[in-house]
């Protein structure tokens, strides 16, 4: 069963490293300012999304369960 996730990128932290775009390309894309935006929170598996969050060098990605609001990362 896949649960729905809320995925957010904190633009105060994002430096446009694009690691999340490489890990979960269906979920993240760069905007004009070269910062990451969430284009589809269901665009990759939960595992991939959490991997992207875990490997973000600036800790800019937050992930929670859409139903329960449980914080999954950080």
């Amino acid at each position, binding site marked *: 069963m896949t649960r729905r996730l809320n995925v957010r990128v904190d633009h*105060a*932290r994002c*430096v446009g*490293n*694009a*690691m999340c775009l*490489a890990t979960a390309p269906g979920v993240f894309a760069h905007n004009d300012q070269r910062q990451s935006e969430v284009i589809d929170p269901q665009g990759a598996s939960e595992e991939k999304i959490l991997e992207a969050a875990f490997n973000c*060098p*600036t800790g800019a990605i937050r992930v929670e369960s859409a139903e329960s609001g449980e914080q999954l990362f950080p």
Partner: protein
Amino acid sequence: MRASDLDELFAPEVIADPYTYFARLREIDPVYWNERFQLWVITGYEEVVWLLRHHELFSSAIMRNSASPPYPPVDPEDLPLFDEVREFRADQLVEQDRPEHLHQRTVVHEYFTPTAMESWRPFVRDAVAELLDELEPLGRMDVLTDLAAPLPVRVIAQMMDVPWEDRDYLRELADSILYMNRGEPYRLRPLTKGMQGILDYAAPLVEERLDRPGDDFISILAQGEKAGIFTRHQVLVNTGLLLFAGHETTMNLICNGLLAFIRHPDQWDLLVADPGGMARLATEECLRYDPPVKSTQRIAADDVRLGGATIRKGDRIRWIMAAANRDPAIFQDPDRFDIGRQPNPHISFGSGIHYCLGVALARMEGQEVFRALAERFGRFELATEEVEYQPSIQFRSLKSLPVRWETRNR
């Protein structure tokens, strides 16, 4: 070039023009084994990025994991000093792997977020203006010693919150630490002296800020010690890292960028036409075209296939961002300096979990300098026949950059 010459990483012509050499390597094999120095040289963009995003396969703990002596070689009687260098560097954030790296980086990256760094822009802008006010009437300067070196030291001194009158001493320490990546056979002597100087200088500051923290960078590190994440030695050597990493890289960005503009007057004119609007993209192109850092290292943590090669656990790897930034598979007309280039996915700040912590600061310093220069000056001219670079495989550092300009009545 003969095949054996392809291993001469430090040949004078490679130091003078790394781009031709690394382009040749990339054509032969983007994952190239350098027999002479016993290391892999990675020059393809895709290969470099893949490597950087697999931190579990490629360790950053070079000092702990590699027993190789310094290269180019140092005076044999100085070799014992290399143990001091090892100890100093091994405890720095850049040499950590996960999980320690994540814990430590979490402590410091709050300080360096783009939003936090943006609040420094007025300080940087004023510092640039103050330096240029003094230089402008002279009609000539050495960009390196008169502008590019003093600026980052001013910023770092303020970030450390140390007395204004300590700036000269900090600059002296920073200058000694620059020997880290030089080629002189005697370099370990000034280097270790500078390292000891930083340890001694920072120790009382850390002591004081453990209990009475301010909002400066040393206080952030000291609070990390209080939380059990940093040891005291780690706090001290990371203070040194801030001084070093924020100094040489910014110096090179300013010097290499301005040299590119001098050699491409049409691009300079584009910037002069709209300094505020173009400074951001122009800085990115300077970073791509002639990056402050040419290459850095990893050590294979496991056997791994990369390109057509099998890299063995323990092998040393040099990944060449200066080469990846000119990979024609990614960048159209890669040898052209084009400040309008967009997108510009250069990897001059690296990629992956070790992505440059100071990226927002470096960008801002570059933007403010190029913008101010374009607002104030007409064309610059080189005041020397030839420029020379430090014989480093890691840094793209000019030895000096004398320029002159027509002074105009304001």
